[in-house]
């Protein structure tokens, strides 16, 4: 479940950054159109791909349930972190992405 969590969290962070309002809050600038598209694509891709580790370990029924749970909780974690510790929120996403290959190796 850890890899799915890292990917979902990173994915949501990317989607969050792709909005004008939150990009402005977190990175103090307006995202360029290319960056916005890039972040959006990356975000959705991460969310979609995060299904794989969940299902690989638990099978389809358990895996999908776990994926849903991880999806919801990672979004909740991000939204609660953003107003209080925005930098930490971003750092977690970065660290998560870096740690993903390690977590992926643990599954394979």
């Amino acid at each position, binding site marked *: *479940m850890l890899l799915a969590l890292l990917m979902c969290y990173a994915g*949501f962070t990317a*989607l*969050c950054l792709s*909005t004008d*309002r*939150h990009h402005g809050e977190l990175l103090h600038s307006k995202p360029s159109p290319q960056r916005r598209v890039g972040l959006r694509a990356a975000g959705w891709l991460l969310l979609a791909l995060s299904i794989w580790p969940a299902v690989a370990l638990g099978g389809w*029924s*358990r895996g999908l*349930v*776990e994926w*849903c*749970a*991880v*999806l*919801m*909780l990672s*979004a*909740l974690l*991000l*939204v*609660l972190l*953003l*107003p*209080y510790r925005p930098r930490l929120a971003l750092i977690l996403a970065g660290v998560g992405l870096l740690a993903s290959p390690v977590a992926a190796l643990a599954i394979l």
Partner: protein
Amino acid sequence: MKEGFRQAMAWLHTWSGLIFGWLLFAIFLTGTLSYFKDEISHWMQPEVQAYPLDSARSLGVAQTYLQQVAPTAARWFINLPDDRDPALTVMWQDKLDPGRRGNFIQKTLDPVTGQDVQARESMGGEFFYRFHFQLQMPHPWGRWLSTIAAMVMFVALITGIITHKKIFKDFFTFRPRKGQRSWLDGHNAVGVLVLPFHLMITYSSLVIFMSMVMPAPILASYAGDTRAFFNDVFPATNNAPAQGQPGKLLPLLPMYEQARAQWDGGHVGRLGVNNPSDVNASVNVFRASSDNVVHEFDSIVSFSGTSGELLRTSAGQSLPAIIGGSFYGLHMGQFAGPVLRWLYFICGLAGTAMIGTGLVIWLGKRQLKHAKSGVMPFELRLVEVLNIASMSGLMIAIAAFFWANRLLPVGFAERSAWEVQTFFMAWGVSLLHAVLRRGRQGWVEQLSVGALLFVAIPLLNALTTSHHLGVSLATGDWAMAGFDLTCLASGVFLAWAAWKTQHRAAPQTRAGRARSLTLKQEAN
């Protein structure tokens, strides 16, 4: 209603949410606790020892006991211990009255010695589980009311989605320290981000009781013969009746093992023996619901009790049965391992918070208009009292339930009923308190009492039993330790909430705010 679709839906959301919000808060909170009902029961009955699981021994012990104590009963049930519930429970029913609800005698056995466990009588976590759909009301009224509440919850969820115009734009928006705006942001956050769970839990609760609340298709399709419908859906419970001739019941272990083989190594949840001393005795082996996400109503292997012959095994499930089973299984969450179970718990708390924040917002919006006069109209005061009693009052009641468990004498015969009565008495007292105290005082005082009660539970545990945190953490009894730690954390949360409520600025009217702004400008 002439104002437009969204506004009409907002009206419906607001009013349905208010009228049923108090009840739904209680249902959601007790339901969320139910995800850890086995662990709660373990804390509340620490005398039940957990042994390494040995099904053969447990089964032998149970069968010997039942054959000694209830040889002529109509039905036996044996619930084997598993990794969450260490208890070996046996139940028996003396007479079968078709149509009448059975009165079972239940005993907890020690799986090693085979003796009755002298554990303190308590409903344990089962109390919260049963309360959240039966509401302590006589059968079937509680179930009807909770299912009606579920339908209103469904309406409230959908109208909430329709009303939330900026559901995508505001997806990540949470702005704390901004008064009413923050409450609304919070309500939206716990609502939208956990929406799949809320929709699942609400719709599945309707499906679970659908035969009771929506019997029309059964009656139409089966020409009134509901028994035939249930025999179609649950074929394994259609057991042969007693023949009236004595027969010897074979050992249950081989049947247990054969059933497990049928399920490719699946686990057994419980066994039911019908007419154990009759020649027509039958044994139903039920699969553990923790095996699959989709609850399989038909995962039952049946044997003849006297010959050991395999009578029937579970057939494949049709799509509608799988869908129904999915709703059931997802709601119960019995397939969940420890991590997922905590995620279920957090989602449940989010749902509870969604309802609670909604109730606070409803009142807060309307209170602003009356802040100047200082006197609240009766309707708003009623809402305020009900808000306090149904939220902080309920939390005090839950803590009181745990306190009663530790303070009532272990040997006291009526203690189980008195634990429940303590819960309701505490809830009643908090309602009275809410009536007598002014709004903010009521909140602060009740939240503080709740905080004190919860924070002190680990201490209470240490003073009254030998299973306190020092011991449970050392021996790896995570259920016991987890309970103490969760109570501690809840107490800290309530203390924080009490502090926040005490120190927040009094709600100002627009005029008041403008006045203080001009004063500030003049001062500069």
